[in-house]
């Protein structure tokens, strides 16, 4: 269970970093750059967390 939290914690950290970068470099199309990224990262995190919840 600790590893599940570890994955989610890292996903949250990476998304915060990316949101900060996107806001700085691309304020005009901010939502366009953030929404798909968050969806993709959420998908990866769910798969990773499911893996640990199932096998570890």
């Amino acid at each position, binding site marked *: 269970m600790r590893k599940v939290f570890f994955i989610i914690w890292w996903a949250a950290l990476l998304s915060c*970093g*990316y949101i900060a970068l996107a806001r700085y470099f691309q304020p005009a*199309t901010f*939502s366009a750059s953030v929404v798909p990224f968050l969806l*993709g*990262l959420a998908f*990866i995190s769910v798969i*990773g967390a*499911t893996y640990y919840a*199932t096998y570890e």
Partner: protein
Amino acid sequence: MQLLRYSAGAICILLGGLVFFVHTDRQFINLTPGEGAGLLQTIRSEEVYEQTFQTRGQTISKIGAYLVPVNANAKTSQAVITISLFAGADQIATADIPVSLINNSGPSFVRLDVPSNKNEDITLRISALPDAHGLIALQKRQFDETFSQQTILFTIDGEKQDYAIGYTVYENIWPPFVQQLGGILVCAGLVLVMWNLVQQARNMTSILLLLYIALLYAAPSLKTYPSFFPAVAILIVAFWAVLRISGRTTIAATFGAFVFVCSTWLPLYFITNGTAEGILSVRDALIDPNQISVSHGGGGYVGISGALFAVVGICIWIYRLATRKLVVTQLDSAVAFLFVVSFYITFIPSPIHHYKAIILVVGCIAWFASLSFDSMQRFLGLRDMFVQTLLVLLLAIFLLDFMNITARTFAYGIGI
């Protein structure tokens, strides 16, 4: 053996370096003239013909005017037609076209290679000395709904005309495909040269290579969409890591990460600003290489390679289910369930239709593509260097396909 490896590495780096320097011309304006004798403007030596247009790129490499001979003496004449370019009042280039070389087969080109600023007004001036008087004609194009009088201005001796002349303009570009191919070759060369180091730090090397691939992949959009690169870099490393901890081999995990992240859902989302509408067919969304944002806004190209491997991956999952390996396939079953649900939401007309679910569809396809790649690699042998080399080459081909499609998607998307 070591000498062979160093030589191959050096050749790869050299080839990559050479490929890096390739440039090419790309047409960015082409106004084709109308047909018919009434649409000709004979060039007289006492008149100056000027057409003003806006540039798009950083250079004007060559320019062509639709000219036709209208006098039988044109074939043997020694005269020339002069083509000059002006930025405001400054002449930036001039070149001559021999009258004897002008024929009916299309535009007559001159090479200029001048720098220009984006959206700058450039004037194309065509003039002739008395010995070329009446030999050549410009081909006219009437204004219609496909282009308006606001973007173009044609004058004779400074007097505005109610038509334009046919012309074509090229810019000199550094094609993204050349950068990417050169980058991959240099990278392959470095890996070969530093093979011992690569073997010692395999995971760190893999992550660095993935970041490098992300940089090459995002190269066409670094100026227009600066946050595209970090998005690709984070997603590609994260998906690769998840596949690795799920037990995939390094190459299979890399393939899965390419299929998911290098698909076109991310660039299309950037270009359309998340405003895509309508339901795409499966073929248009996933396999059609012309991922133009207008018609494929909610698409996600996985290519023939990704689709084929995914189908094989699903077959492997079903086979494992049929042979009662239920525990091993738990996560695969969860992904398959997610695939069915997201596929329904993306492609089937229903109240819950939403195009963004294509991200999940592509993710699930990448998962199963990676599963079949992994099975294939284990079947062929994990220790056989010949097989590994072939698989890496296969991976490079798939990657270049994804890079090419994305570069094209950006090239067409920005023009809209």
